[in-house]
């Protein structure tokens, strides 16, 4: 009982604090002042440990120096120490520092490690001497924590102590001391004490340590020296040690300066091919254009892997001067290398590159001609005349490449070339690339309505398969003209067109399709297409953003044409998903219509939907209650006898709250859908709770329980 009462008090208090902060946005001191004393009381009372734990987290936000003694008292407690540190680590001021320092003398093992870690996070310079003493602790975990904490503090004293400790630190602690030294070196570097930082990094590098510490110190030693660090960088790039090579490669990307770029170029020339490929990638990431000649050489000659890497780098560093070489490689015998070159040619930046490629096309022959055509398409270079000429080439592969390139480049003026080849290709093998090209061209046309009009105009003369292709393209384009054409095709005499068009309408990505679908739902030539249209319409209602009133009207409209229960059920789901007063009116109308038609099950279903909507939009308004009354939810006399909210053995009495919100309907709408908010706090945190209600409706007794946050609809006792 004490627990419930005590918790209730705390929860209410905490809620009040949160509310105060939310309402007035005061500074933290004002926000915490009235509540802190009671939060501290929780810590010093015999409240359950769970409550103390959560209270520590609250104090982490709102606690002040006044909370420090109560929090500090929890530090030696193995179960609560981590919770207390959550608060002590962030409460500002010397009091928290002092409490943690004091705890160093009262704790041991893991608890002590935690205390030291918090001192490190707070960077408490006053703890340096105490931490230095702990470096000799017999517990390697404690000594290691002290070393890292000193590193975080990183002042001159801490740095000196760590430097002195490093050579002779026990093996189990030495890595942590090195970690502390590296943290100190970073601080020195940030303070523009690069020379001191480099010396400290060097000290670590020369100590017997796990490889990763050496790696970290090596990186630091290079960066601290800037351009003077280049020799050390190159040493790593030549290293036979994988870890050092890796840190060399990543540091090469970090270290700024032209000297670095020059050194990398020089290194490239003498590095083994596979190593050179890695260096090339690092140079590309640096964006050093000075490396271009060396990269070009590497692209021309070497192992395939190194050449591929160099060609990839050209994509970022190259320019028009690379085109001849790349074209030669791209049509060469090594397919992997050639493919890399083709990719780079497709993406090599610059209008000069476009102009160069276009100029080469008319005179090119064989594989180079085909490659240039493909590149024109991929780069979307304006070379229509050359492509139109190539589209009539005797070679089918050249024709196909030209058609595809036209698809990527052709303007509206020349769209007819592609339409003609789709509608009636002279050569059968041209049909497929022509279809792909037309689709690509139509989708990217800025004026899609004009483009759609051209397609629609061409359809009557085209064979059926081409008409279906054009419908698919229209569907991919979207727009009003396309919608109109597809709507008409859905009612065409041809089953193939009906099928294609109705499917496309069902996938339409705009609510503009709704009238077309509704019309089709009424007038489609076949029943299966009517159902498809109804479902397509419901998809629009369910998935697209429309105003509440329009959505309700759409639901009403589709219910008028839906004949099967399955589709009607889908609409009812939509109505609950988008509750509004308009939806409630519709639900009530449905219930009344079902009643008039003598369909009790349908009436019950619609009435349930009405209540669900009412619950979501808030059932207290006069409009809502009047509407509910129309579907049999007549006013009743509701008496709440007893109501409890909680879990397990912890329940709080919420009778008064429920009584206050009870109305003339079995539906009780609380101020918030969240029970915790409505009932003034969470009686059992982090547990799913129940609401138990004893009540009378029109004098008849009933009992019900509701899962947390469920709609409170009291069953009417029989």
């Amino acid at each position, binding site marked *: 009982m004490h627990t419930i009462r005590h918790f209730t008090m705390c929860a209410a208090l905490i809620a009040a604090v949160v509310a105060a*902060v939310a309402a007035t946005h005061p500074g933290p001191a004002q926000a915490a002042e009235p509540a802190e004393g009671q939060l501290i009381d929780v810590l010093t009372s015999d409240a359950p440990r769970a409550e103390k734990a959560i209270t520590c*987290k609250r104090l982490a936000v709102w606690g002040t120096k006044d909370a420090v003694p109560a929090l500090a008292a929890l530090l030696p407690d193995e179960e609560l120490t981590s919770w207390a540190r959550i608060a002590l680590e962030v409460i500002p001021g010397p009091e928290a520092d002092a409490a943690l320092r004091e705890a160093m003398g009262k704790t041991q093992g893991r608890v002590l490690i935690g205390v030291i870690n918090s001192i490190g996070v707070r960077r408490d310079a006053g703890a340096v001497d105490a931490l230095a003493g702990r470096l000799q602790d017999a517990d390697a975990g404690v000594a290691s924590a002290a070393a*890292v904490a000193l590193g975080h503090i990183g002042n001159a004293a801490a740095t000196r102590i760590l430097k002195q400790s490093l050579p002779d630190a026990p093996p189990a602690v030495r890595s942590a001391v090195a970690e502390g030294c590296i943290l100190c070196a970073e601080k020195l570097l940030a303070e523009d004490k690069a020379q001191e930082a480099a010396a400290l990094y060097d000290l670590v590098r020369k100590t017997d340590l796990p490889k990763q510490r050496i790696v970290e110190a090596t990186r630091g030693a290079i960066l601290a020296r800037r351009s003077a660090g280049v020799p050390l960088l190159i040493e790593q790039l030549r290293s036979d*040690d994988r870890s050092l090579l890796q840190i060399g490669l*990543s540091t090469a990307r970090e270290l700024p300066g032209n000297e670095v770029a020059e050194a990398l170029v020089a290194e490239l020339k003498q590095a083994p091919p*596979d190593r050179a490929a890695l260096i090339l990638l690092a140079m590309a990431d640096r964006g050093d254009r000075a490396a271009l000649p060396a990269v070009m050489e590497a692209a021309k000659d070497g192992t395939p892997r190194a050449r591929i890497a160099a060609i*990839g780098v050209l994509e970022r560093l190259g320019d028009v001067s690379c085109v001849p070489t790349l074209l030669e490689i791209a049509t060469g015998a090594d397919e992997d290398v050639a493919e890399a070159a083709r990719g780079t040619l497709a993406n090599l930046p610059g209008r000069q590159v476009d102009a160069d490629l276009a100029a080469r096309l008319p005179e090119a022959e064989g594989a180079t001609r085909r490659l240039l055509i493909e590149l024109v398409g991929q780069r979307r270079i304006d070379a229509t005349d050359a492509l139109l000429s190539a589209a009539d080439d005797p070679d089918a592969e050249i024709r196909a490449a030209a058609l595809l390139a036209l698809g990527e480049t052709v303007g509206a003026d020349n769209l007819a070339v592609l339409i003609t080849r789709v509608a009636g290709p002279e050569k059968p093998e041209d049909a497929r690339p022509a279809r792909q090209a037309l689709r690509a061209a139509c989708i*990217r046309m800025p004026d899609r309505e004009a483009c759609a009009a051209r397609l629609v105009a061409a359809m009557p003369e085209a064979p059926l398969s081409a008409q279906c292709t054009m419908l698919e393209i229209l569907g991919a384009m979207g727009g009003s003209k396309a919608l109109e054409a597809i709507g008409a095709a859905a009612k065409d005499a041809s089953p193939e067109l009906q099928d294609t068009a109705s499917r496309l309408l069902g996938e339409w990505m705009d609510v503009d399709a709704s009238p077309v679908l509704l019309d089709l739902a009424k007038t489609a030539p076949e029943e299966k297409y009517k159902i498809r249209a109804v479902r397509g319409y419901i998809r629009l209602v369910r998935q697209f953003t429309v105003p509440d009133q329009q959505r309700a009207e759409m639901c009403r409209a589709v219910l008028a044409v839906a004949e099967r229960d399955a589709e009607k059920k889908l609409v009812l789901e939509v109505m609950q998903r988008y509750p509004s007063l308009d939806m409630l009116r519709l639900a009530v109308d449905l219930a009344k219509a079902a009643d008039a038609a003598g369909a009790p099950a349908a009436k019950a279903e619609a009435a349930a939907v009405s209540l669900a909507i009412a619950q979501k939009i808030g059932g207290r308004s006069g409009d809502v209650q009047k509407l509910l009354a129309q579907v049999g939810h007549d006013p009743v006399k509701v008496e709440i006898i007893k109501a409890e909210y909680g879990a397990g053995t912890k329940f709080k009495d919420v009778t008064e709250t429920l009584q206050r919100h009870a109305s003339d309907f079995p539906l009780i709408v609380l101020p918030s859908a969240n029970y915790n908010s409505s009932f003034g706090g969470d009686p059992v945190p982090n547990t799913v709770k129940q609401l138990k209600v004893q009540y009378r409706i029109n004098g008849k007794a009933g009992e019900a329980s509701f899962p947390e946050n469920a709609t409170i609809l009291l069953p009417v006792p029989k």
Partner: protein
Amino acid sequence: MSKRMASLDRRRFLKTALGVGAAVMAPQVIPGTALGRGGMAAASERIVLGGIGIGNRGTYDLGCFLPEPDVQFVAVCDVKAARRAAVKKMADQKYGNQNCDTYRDFRELLDRPDIDAVLIATGPNWHATAAIYTARAGKDMYCEKPCTKNISQSLLLAETMRRTGRVFQAGTQRRNLPHFAFACELARTGRLGKLKAVHAHPAGMSTSSSGWAAPEPEPPKEEVDWDLYLGPAAWRPFNRALLDGFNFEKGGGMVGGGVLEWGSHCVDLCQWAAGADNTAPVEYNPPQDGRVVARYANGVELVIRNDGWLPLGSCPVRFEGDQGWVEAGDSGKMVLSSPALLAGRKVAEIGGYPATFHVRDFLDCVKTRQKPRAHADAACYSHIACHAANIAVFLDRQVNYDPVKNEFIDDEQANRLRSEALRAPWRL
């Protein structure tokens, strides 16, 4: 990322989408002996991989790693015996042997010098801590999302990766899906005009806390190591209900998960689209009409909202400029304000948000030491944006963040929520 880099990656997508295996694309980036220890290894040497915390999501991720021909999975660590056994069975079946080793304590796995990289798929409580220990042990890592529990962890994660030189890939695999990448590129390269707003779906904004559940008898350590499972989270008694799902305040102590669930994906994409991989919004407002609106220093709005999305599947994002917009989701589809935005490009439609490409990106970068798409700095700031939004939700008021100093401006409460003490002996 430049257009050229994007195109390089598109080629990778196309190759993989066409079923051309990684072995074919690998030569583009794998330089032979550079892989080797002592400079002597053959070009075919594999990346030796271990796994930490391999449950449902981890098993999916591992399923993306195992088929890669340059991966050798050798060890699994999990605090739950049943999961250790299940993953060992999966690996041993793949290789036709009994060689996959099992560990209860991840530090033993990290002590193995033969392991190059680690898949971290624990609960979010462990992600940042395990990642930092992994980096300190000299190993690269693919780490599931959300990667951090608070702002401080986000910064320390990025700082540690820089210091240690390790390759880090956050498990935000949508960065390596072509339609999302293309949508981000449209926004970042100005093809939507001047960027006005980026929109992210958070999958809810409610916060949660695992609290301190009723104690239950603790199972033997070999079955479930509760102490290791709690890890850096504050102590609480064993309760079996906490063993599954995401627990221990994945979003940062009292603030809870909030917008992090999908935000670590969707806000992350927004950050990429806004060219903000090394910064974060400066202003965060409390929810209004179901939306949290944040604002970058250049005025671009980050709108975090649950509703009003086109039907494009889960984790949708939308980017709006003054000359166009694009919206994309997990269906693999995107909707453009104008087809002209495609500019002739073909963007592969890959639905179902597979991690295959993301894993390949990570493996390539392990070899080349390039930064993967979801590198630590990008993950750092996208998580900071989510944490700061959660803090605005929690405090129910506007908070202002300085992404250079990485502190809230004149706001002690918000600043206190940037970090949370770790239970000993764990430290970042």
